[in-house]
C-alpha cells in the first residue's frame, strides 16, 4: 500500500508540474489541482498508514505499546482540501474573466504589461 501511494504521489507531482509548464491557462489550473492532490496524499502517506486500529490511546498508558491510527494527518488533509477547493474555484473564475478580457488562452500572449514601459 505504501509503495503504491508513493508512486501515485510521485506521478501526481510530476504530472502537475508538467501541466504547469504548458502555456495554456486551463492546463495551468489542472496542474495546480494535481499538485494539490499529490500533497494531500503525501500527508496521508507520511502520517503512517495503520489499518483497522482505533485512534485511541488507553488512558493509563505512558508510552505507546500498540500501534494506533494517527488522526492528525486526516485533519490536516481535510483542511488542505477545503482550502485548495476555495483557491481552485477562485482560479477557475479568474481564468474565465481573464479569457474574456484578454481573449487568449496562451500565457505567452499575456504580457502586454511586461515590456520595459
Amino acid at each position, binding site marked *: 500500500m505504501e509503495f503504491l501511494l508513493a508512486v501515485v504521489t510521485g506521478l501526481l507531482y510530476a504530472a502537475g508540474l508538467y501541466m504547469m509548464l504548458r502555456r495554456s491557462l486551463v492546463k495551468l489550473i489542472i496542474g495546480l489541482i494535481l499538485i494539490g492532490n499529490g*500533497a494531500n496524499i*503525501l500527508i496521508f502517506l507520511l*502520517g503512517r498508514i495503520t489499518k483497522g486500529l482505533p485512534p485511541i490511546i488507553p488512558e493509563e498508558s505512558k508510552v505507546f505499546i500498540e500501534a494506533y491510527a494517527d488522526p492528525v494527518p486526516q485533519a490536516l488533509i481535510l483542511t488542505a482540501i477545503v482550502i485548495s477547493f476555495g*483557491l481552485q474555484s477562485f*482560479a477557475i473564475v*479568474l*481564468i474565465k*474573466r481573464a479569457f474574456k*478580457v484578454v481573449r487568449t488562452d496562451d500565457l505567452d500572449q499575456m504580457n502586454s504589461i511586461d515590456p520595459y514601459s
Partner: protein
Amino acid sequence: MIQHIVLYPILVQLFFAIVLLFFWNSVKAQKSISIFGNIVALIVSVWLFITIWQEGTLTIQTGNWEAPFGITFVADTFAATLVLLTAISGFAVSIFSVGTILRARLKFGFLPILHFLLLGLNGAFLTGDIFNLYVWFEIIIISSFVLITIGGEKKQLEGAIKYFTLNILASMIFLTAIAVLYGLAGTLNMADLAIKVAEIENRGLVEITAILFFIGFGIKAGLFPLYFWLPASYHTPPPAVMAIFGGLLTKVGVYALIRVFTVIFVGEDFLELIILSVAGLTLVSGGIGALVHNNIVKVFSYLIICHIGYMILGLGLYTEAAIAGAIFYLIHDIVVKTNLFMMSGLIYRIKGTFSMRDLGGLYNNNPLLSLIMIIPLMSLVGIPPLSGFWPKLALITESFNANNYWLIGAVLFATFITLFVIARLWTEVFWKEGPKLKRIANFRYFSLLSKHQKRQMIVPIVFLAFISLYIGFGAEHIQRLSIRIAQELLDNQAYINAVLKP
C-alpha cells in the same frame, strides 16, 4: 488572564471585517468603520507590545489543549513588533484607500477584504504551530487575490494570473514540506518541532525539508531566482493595494524564514552557505533590475526584492548583531516601502502617469509635498542619520567579522544602486522641467480633489514619514528592541520553554 491579549489583534480585525460585511451597501459607513477599526487595532497592538516588552513572551493554548497537542499562539517580542508594524501600516493604508480607491471598487467589498488580509497577517505573526501558519498564509493569499483583481482591468488580470500561480505553487511546496516534517517528527508545534528535529539522526532528510521550506517561503519573500512574479504583478493594482503588498506581504515570507530557521532548523552549515549566497545574489540582481526601469512603481518593486536581501543576509550570518541588523532593517523597510507606494499613488494623482520620462517639475509646483516625500526616499537610501543607515552599518560590520568580502561587496553594491536609483528618480520626477502632458479627460487630478480628499492622501504619508524619522533619530530605541529580539531568536530554548512549560 493576561495571556488572552495575544489573541486580541486577531479578533479585532476579524470583528471589524465581519461588521464591514454588514454594511455592504453603504460605502460611506464602511469608510468610517474601517478607519475606526484600524485605530482600535493600533491601540490593541500598542497594548500588546507594551505588555510583551514588560512581561516577556506570552503564550495561549487555544481550547485549553496542552502545548504539543493543541494550537498555540505565541507572542514574543518579534511577533509583537511585527503586529505593531502591521497595525501602523494598516492604519495608514486604510486612510489612503478610503481617499483613493474608486467608489466602484469599494462597493465590491474592498475594505472588508483589507481587514481580512490584516487578520491573516496578525495570525501568521502570532501562531506557534506550523500548519496553522499555512492556514494563515492561505487567508493572506486569498485576500490578496481579491485585492489584486478587484476592478478587473486587463493589466490587473494579467498580473493576477502570475501572482496567483506562483503563490499557490509556493503554498503547495510549503504544504509538502509540512507533510515531510510531520512524517519525520510527528508533531506540528514549532517549539516541539525544535526539540524533535534536533534529535533526528538522518540529517540529509532534515536538510531537504529545510530546503523545501526555504523555497516555499523564498517565493513569497521574493528571493533571488524565485522573484519574477513580483515585478510582473505588483504594479497592476491601485496604489493603496500596492502599498499594503509592498510593505507587508513579502515581509511575511521573511518573518516565516527567520522564524523557521531560528527555531526549527538550527546550525546546519550547508544551509548557511545557501542562505548567504541567495542573499548576495538577491541584493545584486534586484538592484540591477531597478536600474533599467522607467516606471516608478516597477523601480520600487525591484527595490523591494533588492532590500529583502539585507534581511536574509542577517539571517544567514546568524550572529546576534547580524540578526539585530536584519530585524532593524525589517522594521525600517515595512514603514518605508508602504510609504513609497502611497507616494507613487500621490505622484500619479498629481501628474496622471508613472513614467519617469514624462514626469517632472514636481518640486517647482508642489514644494511642500516634495519635502515630505524626500524623507522616505532618503530613509530608503540610508543617508545618516535616517533610518536605513543603522542596520546596513551592522550588516557590513558583521560581514567583516565573518571575513566574507563578497557579501560586503554585495551590500555596498546594493546600497550604491539604491542611492543611484533614488537620485535619478529625484532629478527626473522632482527637479527636471517635465514635458507638457496632455490632460486626461475625466481623470481626477490632485488639484481638482476636495480639501477632505487631499487630506486623506497626505495624512498617511506624513504619518509614516514621521515614523521613519523616529526610527532614524530614535535609532537607539529600535536598536535595543532589535537586539532583544535577536537574543530571543538565538536562544530558542527560551521559546521552547515559553510554549511547553507555561
